Protein backbone atom coordinates (compact mmCIF):
# COMPACT_ATOMS: atom_id res chain seq x y z
CA UNK A 1 0.00 0.00 0.00
CA UNK A 2 1.57 3.30 0.96
CA UNK A 3 4.54 1.86 2.74
CA UNK A 4 3.66 4.04 5.69
CA UNK A 5 2.72 1.97 8.71
CA UNK A 6 -0.63 2.78 10.27
CA UNK A 7 -0.64 3.64 13.97
CA UNK A 8 -2.47 1.18 16.20
CA UNK A 9 -4.07 2.96 19.14
CA UNK A 10 -5.59 1.36 22.26
CA UNK A 11 -9.38 1.35 22.33
CA UNK A 12 -10.44 -0.87 25.20
CA UNK A 13 -10.50 -4.62 25.69
CA UNK A 14 -12.21 -5.56 22.44
CA UNK A 15 -11.09 -3.07 19.79
CA UNK A 16 -8.10 -1.44 18.14
CA UNK A 17 -8.29 2.01 16.59
CA UNK A 18 -6.13 2.14 13.47
CA UNK A 19 -5.01 5.60 12.42
CA UNK A 20 -4.20 5.98 8.74
CA UNK A 21 -2.62 8.81 6.78
CA UNK A 22 -5.87 9.67 5.06
CA UNK A 23 -9.13 8.40 3.64
CA UNK A 24 -7.49 6.57 0.70
CA UNK A 25 -5.43 4.51 3.14
CA UNK A 26 -8.53 3.80 5.24
CA UNK A 27 -10.39 2.54 2.17
CA UNK A 28 -7.47 0.35 1.07
CA UNK A 29 -7.01 -1.06 4.57
CA UNK A 30 -10.75 -1.69 4.87
CA UNK A 31 -10.66 -3.67 1.61
CA UNK A 32 -7.62 -5.64 2.71
CA UNK A 33 -9.16 -6.48 6.10
CA UNK A 34 -12.66 -7.23 4.78
CA UNK A 35 -11.25 -9.62 2.16
CA UNK A 36 -10.24 -12.24 4.67
CA UNK A 37 -11.19 -11.59 8.29
CA UNK A 38 -10.17 -14.22 10.85
CA UNK A 39 -12.75 -15.70 13.18
CA UNK A 40 -13.45 -13.37 16.08
CA UNK A 41 -13.65 -10.15 14.08
CA UNK A 42 -16.97 -8.56 15.05
CA UNK A 43 -16.91 -5.65 12.65
CA UNK A 44 -14.82 -3.07 10.85
CA UNK A 45 -15.88 0.53 11.36
CA UNK A 46 -14.23 2.90 8.89
CA UNK A 47 -14.14 6.67 9.42
CA UNK A 48 -12.39 9.52 7.63
CA UNK A 49 -8.88 8.82 8.91
CA UNK A 50 -9.31 5.92 11.28
CA UNK A 51 -10.74 2.43 11.24
CA UNK A 52 -11.97 0.57 14.30
CA UNK A 53 -11.34 -3.16 14.35
CA UNK A 54 -13.79 -4.66 16.85
CA UNK A 55 -13.15 -8.22 17.97
CA UNK A 56 -14.43 -10.81 20.38
CA UNK A 57 -11.31 -11.07 22.58
CA UNK A 58 -12.30 -14.56 23.73
CA UNK A 59 -11.96 -15.76 20.13
CA UNK A 60 -9.30 -13.43 18.73
CA UNK A 61 -6.79 -11.86 21.11
CA UNK A 62 -6.08 -8.16 20.57
CA UNK A 63 -2.39 -8.96 19.94
CA UNK A 64 -3.37 -11.38 17.16
CA UNK A 65 -5.75 -8.82 15.68
CA UNK A 66 -2.95 -6.24 15.76
CA UNK A 67 -0.66 -8.60 13.86
CA UNK A 68 -3.38 -9.21 11.28
CA UNK A 69 -3.92 -5.47 10.79
CA UNK A 70 -0.18 -4.83 10.35
CA UNK A 71 0.13 -7.63 7.78
CA UNK A 72 -2.91 -6.39 5.87
CA UNK A 73 -1.57 -2.82 5.86
CA UNK A 74 1.75 -4.06 4.52
CA UNK A 75 0.47 -6.53 1.93
CA UNK A 76 -2.78 -4.88 0.82
CA UNK A 77 -5.79 -6.85 -0.42
CA UNK A 78 -5.10 -10.28 -1.97
CA UNK A 79 -5.02 -10.10 -5.77
CA UNK A 80 -8.17 -12.17 -6.12
CA UNK A 81 -9.71 -10.82 -2.94
CA UNK A 82 -13.12 -9.33 -2.98
CA UNK A 83 -14.08 -7.14 -0.11
CA UNK A 84 -17.45 -7.80 1.44
CA UNK A 85 -19.58 -4.86 0.59
CA UNK A 86 -21.33 -4.38 3.86
CA UNK A 87 -18.11 -3.95 5.80
CA UNK A 88 -18.94 -6.87 7.99
CA UNK A 89 -16.83 -9.95 8.43
CA UNK A 90 -18.42 -12.36 5.98
CA UNK A 91 -16.88 -15.82 5.86
CA UNK A 92 -18.74 -16.75 2.68
CA UNK A 93 -17.09 -13.95 0.72
CA UNK A 94 -20.34 -13.41 -1.13
CA UNK A 95 -20.89 -9.81 -2.01
CA UNK A 96 -22.81 -7.80 -4.49
CA UNK A 97 -20.48 -6.15 -6.96
CA UNK A 98 -23.27 -4.11 -8.49
CA UNK A 99 -23.30 -0.41 -7.83
CA UNK A 100 -26.37 1.06 -6.21
CA UNK A 101 -28.12 3.38 -8.64
CA UNK A 102 -29.85 6.34 -7.02
CA UNK A 103 -32.27 8.37 -9.09
CA UNK A 104 -32.12 12.04 -8.21
CA UNK A 105 -34.41 14.93 -8.99
CA UNK A 106 -31.76 17.65 -9.26
CA UNK A 107 -33.84 20.58 -8.14
CA UNK A 108 -32.20 21.10 -4.77
CA UNK A 109 -32.53 24.42 -2.97
CA UNK A 110 -28.80 25.09 -3.01
CA UNK A 111 -28.00 23.93 -6.55
CA UNK A 112 -27.99 27.30 -8.29
CA UNK A 113 -26.18 29.10 -5.49
CA UNK A 114 -23.56 26.38 -5.20
CA UNK A 115 -22.94 26.24 -8.95
CA UNK A 116 -22.48 30.00 -8.91
CA UNK A 117 -20.05 29.75 -5.99
CA UNK A 118 -18.05 27.07 -7.80
CA UNK A 119 -18.03 29.06 -11.04
CA UNK A 120 -19.86 26.45 -13.12
CA UNK A 121 -23.36 26.10 -14.50
CA UNK A 122 -25.96 24.08 -12.58
CA UNK A 123 -26.09 21.71 -15.56
CA UNK A 124 -22.34 21.14 -15.37
CA UNK A 125 -22.49 20.50 -11.62
CA UNK A 126 -25.25 17.94 -12.09
CA UNK A 127 -23.40 16.30 -14.98
CA UNK A 128 -20.28 15.88 -12.82
CA UNK A 129 -22.34 14.49 -9.95
CA UNK A 130 -23.94 11.96 -12.32
CA UNK A 131 -20.67 11.06 -14.02
CA UNK A 132 -18.66 10.51 -10.85
CA UNK A 133 -18.03 6.93 -9.65
CA UNK A 134 -18.96 7.25 -5.99
CA UNK A 135 -18.14 4.89 -3.21
CA UNK A 136 -19.38 4.73 0.38
CA UNK A 137 -16.33 5.57 2.48
CA UNK A 138 -17.98 5.36 5.88
CA UNK A 139 -21.18 6.02 7.79
CA UNK A 140 -21.31 9.04 9.99
CA UNK A 141 -23.56 11.65 11.54
CA UNK A 142 -26.70 9.47 11.64
CA UNK A 143 -27.68 5.82 11.14
CA UNK A 144 -27.37 4.99 7.45
CA UNK A 145 -25.87 8.33 6.43
CA UNK A 146 -23.13 7.26 4.02
CA UNK A 147 -20.26 9.60 3.23
CA UNK A 148 -19.58 9.08 -0.48
CA UNK A 149 -16.30 9.89 -2.19
CA UNK A 150 -15.27 9.82 -5.83
CA UNK A 151 -11.86 10.25 -7.42
CA UNK A 152 -13.49 12.04 -10.35
CA UNK A 153 -15.48 14.57 -8.28
CA UNK A 154 -13.42 17.76 -8.45
CA UNK A 155 -15.26 20.07 -6.06
CA UNK A 156 -14.63 21.10 -2.49
CA UNK A 157 -17.93 22.42 -1.16
CA UNK A 158 -18.23 24.61 1.92
CA UNK A 159 -20.90 23.61 4.43
CA UNK A 160 -23.76 26.02 5.10
CA UNK A 161 -22.84 28.78 7.55
CA UNK A 162 -25.99 27.98 9.48
CA UNK A 163 -27.22 24.41 9.35
CA UNK A 164 -30.84 23.75 8.47
CA UNK A 165 -32.83 22.55 11.46
CA UNK A 166 -34.83 20.24 9.25
CA UNK A 167 -33.66 18.41 6.14
CA UNK A 168 -36.25 16.06 4.63
CA UNK A 169 -35.45 12.38 4.11
CA UNK A 170 -34.09 11.68 0.64
CA UNK A 171 -32.37 15.06 0.30
CA UNK A 172 -29.16 14.70 -1.70
CA UNK A 173 -26.33 16.96 -0.64
CA UNK A 174 -22.66 17.73 -0.97
CA UNK A 175 -20.11 19.01 1.56
CA UNK A 176 -16.35 19.09 1.49
CA UNK A 177 -15.28 16.36 -0.91
CA UNK A 178 -18.29 14.23 0.05
CA UNK A 179 -21.75 13.59 -1.27
CA UNK A 180 -24.57 11.89 0.60
CA UNK A 181 -28.29 11.49 1.02
CA UNK A 182 -30.25 12.03 4.22
CA UNK A 183 -31.81 8.69 5.26
CA UNK A 184 -34.21 10.28 7.74
CA UNK A 185 -35.36 13.76 8.61
CA UNK A 186 -32.66 15.51 10.59
CA UNK A 187 -30.81 18.79 10.95
CA UNK A 188 -28.07 19.24 8.38
CA UNK A 189 -25.42 21.59 7.04
CA UNK A 190 -24.80 20.06 3.62
CA UNK A 191 -25.67 21.92 0.41
CA UNK A 192 -28.75 20.29 -1.06
CA UNK A 193 -28.62 19.72 -4.79
CA UNK A 194 -31.52 17.30 -5.23
CA UNK A 195 -33.71 14.63 -3.72
CA UNK A 196 -34.35 10.94 -4.20
CA UNK A 197 -37.27 8.68 -3.48
CA UNK A 198 -35.00 5.66 -2.94
CA UNK A 199 -35.40 4.05 0.49
CA UNK A 200 -32.04 4.74 2.13
CA UNK A 201 -32.91 3.42 5.58
CA UNK A 202 -35.24 0.63 6.59
CA UNK A 203 -34.77 -0.52 10.17
CA UNK A 204 -36.71 -3.70 9.44
CA UNK A 205 -34.27 -4.71 6.69
CA UNK A 206 -30.86 -6.26 7.27
CA UNK A 207 -28.68 -4.41 6.51
CA UNK A 208 -30.97 -1.45 7.30
CA UNK A 209 -28.86 0.98 5.29
CA UNK A 210 -28.77 0.99 1.49
CA UNK A 211 -25.38 2.70 1.52
CA UNK A 212 -22.91 0.52 3.41
CA UNK A 213 -19.15 1.07 3.58
CA UNK A 214 -17.34 -0.11 0.46
CA UNK A 215 -20.41 -0.03 -1.77
CA UNK A 216 -20.24 1.62 -5.19
CA UNK A 217 -22.89 4.25 -5.97
CA UNK A 218 -23.98 5.98 -9.15
CA UNK A 219 -26.43 8.86 -9.34
CA UNK A 220 -28.82 9.13 -12.27
CA UNK A 221 -30.93 12.12 -13.16
CA UNK A 222 -34.61 11.36 -12.81
CA UNK A 223 -36.67 12.58 -15.72
CA UNK A 224 -39.96 14.12 -14.81
Amino acid at each position, binding site marked *: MTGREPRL*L*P*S*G*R*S*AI*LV*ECVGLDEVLALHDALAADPPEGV*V*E*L*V*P*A*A*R*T*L*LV*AVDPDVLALESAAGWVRRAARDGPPADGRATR*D*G*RADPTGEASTDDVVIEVDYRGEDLAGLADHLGVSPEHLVARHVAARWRVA*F*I*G*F*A*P*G*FGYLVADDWPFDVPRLDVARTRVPPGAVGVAGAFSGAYPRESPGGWRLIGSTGVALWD*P*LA*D*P*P*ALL*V*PGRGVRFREARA
Partner: protein
Amino acid sequence: MTLLRVEATGGLVLVQDLGRPGRAHLGVAPSGALDRGALALANRLVGNPDGVAGLEVVLGGLRLAPDRDLWFAVTGAWGSVRVAGREVGPYRAARVRAGEAVELGSAERGLRYLVAVRGGIDEPMVLGSRSRDTLAGIGPEPVGPGRVLAVGREPAASVPLLDDDAAYPPPGGPVALALLPGPRADWVTDAALAALHESRWRVSASADRVGARLEGPTLERRVPGELVSEPTVAGAIQVTGAGVPTVLLADRPVTGGYPVVAIVDPGSLDLLAQVRPGQEVRFRHA
Protein backbone atom coordinates in the same frame (compact mmCIF):
# COMPACT_ATOMS: atom_id res chain seq x y z
CA MET B 1 -50.50 -14.81 25.55
CA THR B 2 -49.96 -12.89 28.74
CA LEU B 3 -50.38 -9.13 28.54
CA LEU B 4 -48.79 -6.69 30.91
CA ARG B 5 -50.58 -3.42 31.46
CA VAL B 6 -48.54 -0.40 32.50
CA GLU B 7 -50.70 1.46 35.02
CA ALA B 8 -48.23 4.15 36.07
CA THR B 9 -44.67 5.29 35.44
CA GLY B 10 -42.32 7.63 37.29
CA GLY B 11 -38.90 7.92 35.66
CA LEU B 12 -38.11 6.84 32.11
CA VAL B 13 -39.12 3.24 31.31
CA LEU B 14 -37.55 1.52 28.30
CA VAL B 15 -37.59 -1.95 26.84
CA GLN B 16 -33.99 -3.22 26.80
CA ASP B 17 -32.21 -6.46 26.05
CA LEU B 18 -28.48 -6.89 25.47
CA GLY B 19 -28.60 -4.66 22.39
CA ARG B 20 -27.53 -4.85 18.77
CA PRO B 21 -23.72 -4.99 18.65
CA GLY B 22 -21.72 -5.14 15.42
CA ARG B 23 -23.63 -2.47 13.48
CA ALA B 24 -21.55 0.63 14.15
CA HIS B 25 -20.35 0.50 10.53
CA LEU B 26 -23.99 1.21 9.57
CA GLY B 27 -24.18 4.06 12.06
CA VAL B 28 -26.16 2.06 14.62
CA ALA B 29 -25.08 2.06 18.28
CA PRO B 30 -25.25 -1.16 20.32
CA SER B 31 -27.78 0.22 22.83
CA GLY B 32 -29.03 -2.41 25.29
CA ALA B 33 -29.45 -2.39 29.09
CA LEU B 34 -26.90 -0.07 30.70
CA ASP B 35 -26.55 -2.48 33.63
CA ARG B 36 -26.12 -5.65 31.61
CA GLY B 37 -25.30 -7.84 34.59
CA ALA B 38 -28.50 -6.77 36.33
CA LEU B 39 -30.61 -7.68 33.29
CA ALA B 40 -28.92 -11.07 33.02
CA LEU B 41 -29.45 -11.71 36.73
CA ALA B 42 -33.11 -10.70 36.62
CA ASN B 43 -33.60 -13.05 33.70
CA ARG B 44 -31.86 -15.92 35.46
CA LEU B 45 -34.02 -15.41 38.53
CA VAL B 46 -37.13 -16.16 36.48
CA GLY B 47 -35.56 -18.91 34.34
CA ASN B 48 -35.09 -16.82 31.17
CA PRO B 49 -31.98 -16.83 28.98
CA ASP B 50 -29.70 -13.89 29.94
CA GLY B 51 -30.45 -11.69 26.95
CA VAL B 52 -34.26 -11.69 26.95
CA ALA B 53 -35.82 -8.21 26.92
CA GLY B 54 -36.92 -6.61 30.17
CA LEU B 55 -37.70 -3.11 31.38
CA GLU B 56 -35.09 -0.56 32.40
CA VAL B 57 -36.75 1.75 34.91
CA VAL B 58 -35.13 4.96 36.12
CA LEU B 59 -35.67 5.52 39.85
CA GLY B 60 -39.04 3.76 40.23
CA GLY B 61 -42.69 4.75 40.18
CA LEU B 62 -43.65 1.92 37.82
CA ARG B 63 -46.88 -0.04 38.34
CA LEU B 64 -47.56 -3.12 36.23
CA ALA B 65 -50.57 -5.43 36.14
CA PRO B 66 -50.55 -8.70 34.17
CA ASP B 67 -53.74 -10.37 32.95
CA ARG B 68 -52.44 -13.79 34.02
CA ASP B 69 -50.28 -15.03 36.87
CA LEU B 70 -46.68 -14.10 36.14
CA TRP B 71 -43.21 -14.63 37.62
CA PHE B 72 -41.02 -11.56 37.68
CA ALA B 73 -37.81 -10.28 39.29
CA VAL B 74 -36.40 -6.82 39.89
CA THR B 75 -32.65 -6.19 40.06
CA GLY B 76 -30.24 -3.30 39.46
CA ALA B 77 -31.35 -0.46 41.70
CA TRP B 78 -32.34 -1.38 45.27
CA GLY B 79 -35.73 -0.37 46.59
CA SER B 80 -39.19 -1.43 47.54
CA VAL B 81 -40.93 -4.00 45.34
CA ARG B 82 -44.56 -4.64 46.26
CA VAL B 83 -47.17 -7.03 44.93
CA ALA B 84 -50.76 -6.03 45.75
CA GLY B 85 -49.36 -3.79 48.46
CA ARG B 86 -47.19 -6.38 50.23
CA GLU B 87 -43.40 -6.11 50.12
CA VAL B 88 -41.66 -8.91 48.23
CA GLY B 89 -38.26 -7.26 47.87
CA PRO B 90 -35.80 -6.89 45.00
CA TYR B 91 -33.33 -9.43 43.67
CA ARG B 92 -35.64 -12.42 43.93
CA ALA B 93 -38.26 -14.10 41.82
CA ALA B 94 -41.83 -13.37 42.90
CA ARG B 95 -45.23 -14.15 41.51
CA VAL B 96 -47.94 -11.65 40.74
CA ARG B 97 -51.51 -12.95 40.29
CA ALA B 98 -53.80 -11.88 37.50
CA GLY B 99 -55.46 -8.63 38.52
CA GLU B 100 -52.82 -7.75 41.11
CA ALA B 101 -50.23 -5.04 40.50
CA VAL B 102 -46.44 -4.88 40.94
CA GLU B 103 -45.17 -1.55 42.22
CA LEU B 104 -41.61 -0.27 42.30
CA GLY B 105 -40.87 2.29 45.02
CA SER B 106 -38.24 5.00 44.78
CA ALA B 107 -34.79 3.46 44.55
CA GLU B 108 -32.81 3.72 47.79
CA ARG B 109 -29.58 2.66 46.09
CA GLY B 110 -28.64 2.86 42.45
CA LEU B 111 -30.51 4.49 39.60
CA ARG B 112 -31.89 1.89 37.21
CA TYR B 113 -34.12 -1.04 38.07
CA LEU B 114 -34.13 -3.95 35.65
CA VAL B 115 -37.44 -5.83 35.57
CA ALA B 116 -37.55 -9.29 34.03
CA VAL B 117 -40.78 -11.19 33.48
CA ARG B 118 -40.83 -14.91 32.82
CA GLY B 119 -40.96 -15.23 29.01
CA GLY B 120 -39.54 -11.75 28.45
CA ILE B 121 -41.09 -8.60 26.99
CA ASP B 122 -42.17 -9.48 23.47
CA GLU B 123 -42.03 -6.18 21.59
CA PRO B 124 -41.08 -6.29 17.88
CA MET B 125 -37.38 -6.76 17.17
CA VAL B 126 -35.57 -4.06 15.20
CA LEU B 127 -32.15 -4.94 13.81
CA GLY B 128 -31.96 -8.06 15.92
CA SER B 129 -32.84 -6.44 19.23
CA ARG B 130 -35.75 -5.15 21.30
CA SER B 131 -33.64 -2.38 22.83
CA ARG B 132 -34.70 1.24 22.62
CA ASP B 133 -31.90 3.42 21.29
CA THR B 134 -32.79 6.82 22.73
CA LEU B 135 -30.45 8.78 20.45
CA ALA B 136 -31.29 7.16 17.10
CA GLY B 137 -34.95 6.51 17.95
CA ILE B 138 -34.68 2.83 17.04
CA GLY B 139 -36.62 0.08 18.81
CA PRO B 140 -39.75 0.01 21.00
CA GLU B 141 -41.17 3.40 21.97
CA PRO B 142 -40.56 4.53 25.57
CA VAL B 143 -43.13 2.93 27.85
CA GLY B 144 -45.82 5.18 29.29
CA PRO B 145 -49.00 4.70 31.34
CA GLY B 146 -51.69 2.77 29.47
CA ARG B 147 -49.23 0.82 27.37
CA VAL B 148 -49.91 -2.91 27.10
CA LEU B 149 -46.81 -5.06 26.62
CA ALA B 150 -46.90 -8.62 25.35
CA VAL B 151 -45.06 -11.27 27.35
CA GLY B 152 -43.18 -13.94 25.41
CA ARG B 153 -43.52 -17.71 25.66
CA GLU B 154 -42.42 -19.38 28.87
CA PRO B 155 -38.85 -20.67 28.67
CA ALA B 156 -38.15 -24.38 29.08
CA ALA B 157 -36.18 -23.84 32.29
CA SER B 158 -38.12 -23.71 35.53
CA VAL B 159 -37.92 -20.81 37.95
CA PRO B 160 -34.75 -21.63 39.91
CA LEU B 161 -34.91 -22.16 43.64
CA LEU B 162 -32.56 -19.59 45.14
CA ASP B 163 -32.01 -17.97 48.47
CA ASP B 164 -31.07 -14.30 48.73
CA ASP B 165 -27.42 -14.79 47.83
CA ALA B 166 -27.92 -13.13 44.46
CA ALA B 167 -28.45 -9.72 46.06
CA TYR B 168 -25.68 -7.16 45.55
CA PRO B 169 -27.26 -3.73 45.93
CA PRO B 170 -25.34 -0.91 44.22
CA PRO B 171 -23.04 1.11 46.50
CA GLY B 172 -24.45 4.28 48.02
CA GLY B 173 -21.10 6.05 48.57
CA PRO B 174 -18.15 6.73 46.28
CA VAL B 175 -17.84 4.34 43.35
CA ALA B 176 -14.45 3.23 41.98
CA LEU B 177 -14.28 2.50 38.25
CA ALA B 178 -11.36 0.90 36.39
CA LEU B 179 -9.83 2.85 33.49
CA LEU B 180 -8.01 1.56 30.41
CA PRO B 181 -5.78 3.75 28.21
CA GLY B 182 -7.54 5.69 25.47
CA PRO B 183 -6.39 6.30 21.89
CA ARG B 184 -5.92 10.05 22.34
CA ALA B 185 -4.43 10.24 25.83
CA ASP B 186 -1.76 12.53 24.36
CA TRP B 187 -4.38 15.16 23.53
CA VAL B 188 -4.52 16.23 27.18
CA THR B 189 -1.61 17.29 29.39
CA ASP B 190 0.12 14.83 31.71
CA ALA B 191 -1.30 16.83 34.61
CA ALA B 192 -4.80 16.40 33.20
CA LEU B 193 -4.34 12.65 32.84
CA ALA B 194 -3.13 12.48 36.43
CA ALA B 195 -6.10 14.61 37.54
CA LEU B 196 -8.48 12.22 35.80
CA HIS B 197 -7.14 9.36 37.90
CA GLU B 198 -6.70 11.24 41.17
CA SER B 199 -9.72 13.54 41.44
CA ARG B 200 -13.14 13.01 42.92
CA TRP B 201 -15.73 13.30 40.18
CA ARG B 202 -19.48 13.69 40.29
CA VAL B 203 -21.87 12.44 37.66
CA SER B 204 -23.79 15.34 36.14
CA ALA B 205 -27.57 15.65 36.37
CA SER B 206 -27.61 15.59 32.56
CA ALA B 207 -26.28 12.01 32.43
CA ASP B 208 -28.38 9.69 30.29
CA ARG B 209 -28.03 6.58 28.14
CA VAL B 210 -25.96 8.48 25.56
CA GLY B 211 -23.30 9.64 27.98
CA ALA B 212 -22.46 10.68 31.52
CA ARG B 213 -20.76 14.04 31.90
CA LEU B 214 -18.38 14.23 34.84
CA GLU B 215 -18.09 17.28 37.08
CA GLY B 216 -14.69 18.00 38.58
CA PRO B 217 -11.48 19.74 37.61
CA THR B 218 -10.95 20.99 34.07
CA LEU B 219 -8.76 18.61 32.07
CA GLU B 220 -6.36 20.82 30.18
CA ARG B 221 -6.00 19.94 26.53
CA ARG B 222 -2.53 19.72 25.04
CA VAL B 223 -3.93 19.74 21.49
CA PRO B 224 -6.74 22.25 20.82
CA GLY B 225 -9.61 21.77 18.41
CA GLU B 226 -11.37 18.63 17.30
CA LEU B 227 -10.36 15.46 15.53
CA VAL B 228 -11.83 14.28 12.30
CA SER B 229 -14.63 12.09 13.69
CA GLU B 230 -13.50 8.61 14.65
CA PRO B 231 -15.28 5.48 15.86
CA THR B 232 -16.07 5.26 19.57
CA VAL B 233 -16.46 2.37 22.00
CA ALA B 234 -18.59 1.97 25.13
CA GLY B 235 -16.96 3.63 28.12
CA ALA B 236 -14.86 5.99 26.03
CA ILE B 237 -14.09 9.18 27.97
CA GLN B 238 -14.05 12.07 25.56
CA VAL B 239 -12.78 15.49 26.58
CA THR B 240 -14.30 18.62 25.05
CA GLY B 241 -12.31 21.67 24.07
CA ALA B 242 -13.32 23.22 27.39
CA GLY B 243 -11.75 20.25 29.21
CA VAL B 244 -14.96 18.53 30.32
CA PRO B 245 -14.95 14.71 30.32
CA THR B 246 -17.97 12.64 29.29
CA VAL B 247 -18.24 8.85 29.42
CA LEU B 248 -19.95 7.56 26.28
CA LEU B 249 -22.55 4.86 26.93
CA ALA B 250 -24.75 2.40 25.05
CA ASP B 251 -26.76 4.89 22.94
CA ARG B 252 -23.72 6.99 21.98
CA PRO B 253 -23.05 8.40 18.52
CA VAL B 254 -20.90 5.72 16.87
CA THR B 255 -18.33 8.30 15.79
CA GLY B 256 -17.17 11.40 17.59
CA GLY B 257 -14.77 14.28 17.14
CA TYR B 258 -13.64 14.84 20.72
CA PRO B 259 -10.46 13.05 21.72
CA VAL B 260 -10.93 9.90 23.80
CA VAL B 261 -8.29 9.99 26.52
CA ALA B 262 -9.27 6.92 28.54
CA ILE B 263 -11.82 4.12 28.48
CA VAL B 264 -13.89 2.81 31.38
CA ASP B 265 -13.25 -0.91 31.67
CA PRO B 266 -16.24 -2.90 30.40
CA GLY B 267 -16.32 -4.60 33.81
CA SER B 268 -17.04 -1.23 35.46
CA LEU B 269 -19.81 -0.02 33.14
CA ASP B 270 -22.58 -1.81 35.06
CA LEU B 271 -21.50 0.03 38.20
CA LEU B 272 -21.51 3.34 36.34
CA ALA B 273 -25.05 2.65 35.13
CA GLN B 274 -26.20 2.75 38.75
CA VAL B 275 -24.40 5.94 39.79
CA ARG B 276 -26.85 8.69 40.60
CA PRO B 277 -26.43 12.31 39.55
CA GLY B 278 -24.20 13.97 42.13
CA GLN B 279 -22.79 10.69 43.43
CA GLU B 280 -18.99 10.50 43.69
CA VAL B 281 -16.90 8.56 41.19
CA ARG B 282 -13.17 7.84 41.33
CA PHE B 283 -11.00 6.12 38.77
CA ARG B 284 -8.19 3.61 39.14
CA HIS B 285 -5.96 1.95 36.59
CA ALA B 286 -7.49 -1.31 35.33
